[in-house]
């Protein structure tokens, strides 16, 4: 599939979870300046598909490529250009929001503390940046996770339910950031239950 050589392509992946055949030869292709919105009922393999795309899960059959290169062959380069956010915020409760961000982002790229503070301000959690994340609300933790995606400066965003726990203003911010990312030449794959009202190229994939 050469059309996806400037983006992400998942080709004919088969995944079994125990006895269940979750993904049956599924193919997706997302190009630059494009957002793929994956929806569907619970248990249809949305998260599994995202984990396959991130490289966390090896499909039994099929392959995943980024910029025309199989991610198996160059996982490090792929990971440097990709930001993955699972449905849980993946933060250490004992570390502050800023430390959480630093220890996650600084492994990917050189980053300064003021830079991280700006990103935390952008997602609305600047005032609580120095509190341990265990005292933050679920919505605030989600915003810290969003700041982590943003701070990674990645071309590809893989987001699992990024809207969960966010208030109205937070959802609006999430949409705004997604839009800016895609319009700026990025690629995004988003798992979300509700419809996305975005002013950019959105394709929908319904799993069932």
């Amino acid at each position, binding site marked *: 599939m050469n059309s996806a050589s400037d983006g992400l392509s998942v080709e004919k992946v088969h995944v079994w979870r125990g006895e269940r055949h979750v993904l049956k030869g599924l193919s997706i292709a997302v190009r630059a300046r494009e957002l793929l919105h994956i929806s569907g009922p619970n248990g249809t393999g949305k998260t599994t598909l995202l984990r396959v795309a991130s490289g*966390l899960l*090896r499909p039994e059959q099929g392959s995943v490529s980024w910029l025309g290169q199989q991610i198996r062959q160059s996982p490090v380069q792929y990971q*440097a250009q990709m930001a993955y956010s*699972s449905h849980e915020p*993946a933060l250490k409760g004992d570390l502050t929001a800023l430390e959480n961000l630093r220890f996650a982002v600084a*492994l990917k*790229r050189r980053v300064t503390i003021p830079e991280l503070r700006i990103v935390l301000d952008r997602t609305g959690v600047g005032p609580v940046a120095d509190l341990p994340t265990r005292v933050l609300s679920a919505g605030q933790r989600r915003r810290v996770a969003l700041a982590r995606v943003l701070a990674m400066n990645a071309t590809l965003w893989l987001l699992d339910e990024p809207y969960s726990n966010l208030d109205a203003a937070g959802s609006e911010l999430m949409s705004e950031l997604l839009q800016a990312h895609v319009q700026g030449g990025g690629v995004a794959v988003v798992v979300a239950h509700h419809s996305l009202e975005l002013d950019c190229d959105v394709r929908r994939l319904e799993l069932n």
Partner: protein
Amino acid sequence: MQVGARQAFLLILHRELSLSFRRPEQLLQPLVFFLIVTTLFPLGLSLQLSLLRDISPGVLWTAALLSSLLSLDSLFKSDADDGTLEQLSLSGQGLTLIVVAKTCAHWLVTGAALVVVSPIVAIALAIPVAAFATMMLSLALGTITLSWLGAIGAGLTIGLRRGNVLLSLIVLPLATPLLIFGAAATERAVSGTSAVGPLYFLAALCVFTCTLAPLAATAALRITLE
């Protein structure tokens, strides 16, 4: 703009140490366990100094093994539970580096700490001061090896609910050579003979695990992460 391996190693080390020191009670538990178990023996046995001297190397080493097991469970599990291990594994740094950095941090807060407090225990067990250096060296070599064996076991048992019991069953049999050579080294130091032989064996085991266990632990982790 990519981050070098050395920098990434130091960053993960920093992360692990910060996390450990935010929970001092978890840090102290294995040490206090080690102190209590070893001081129970002289209290429970008859007050014959010669008997105590005979059994003290074995007691010291058994307690060290068991107390190290207490903290192994947390090596990867808490990161796996809250999803941060996934983030680390996707950080573009390679899983082996992460495993090495985490295990080194784990040894610093458990094994190294145990070596530091061991003279207190040694006094309670009537080990002569002249034997302290050999005892501490043997413990240092032994705990490094044990941290690596533990990393393999911890990597394999992440996903299991009663993982810590299985972890003990995996690690303890592998650790028996440590007990044998460690106790032998300490015993020779106590009796005033040369402990070089058993120390060489301990050092060999240490080098062996330091080189191969990172690969094994990474493979174990990769299986359980999926």
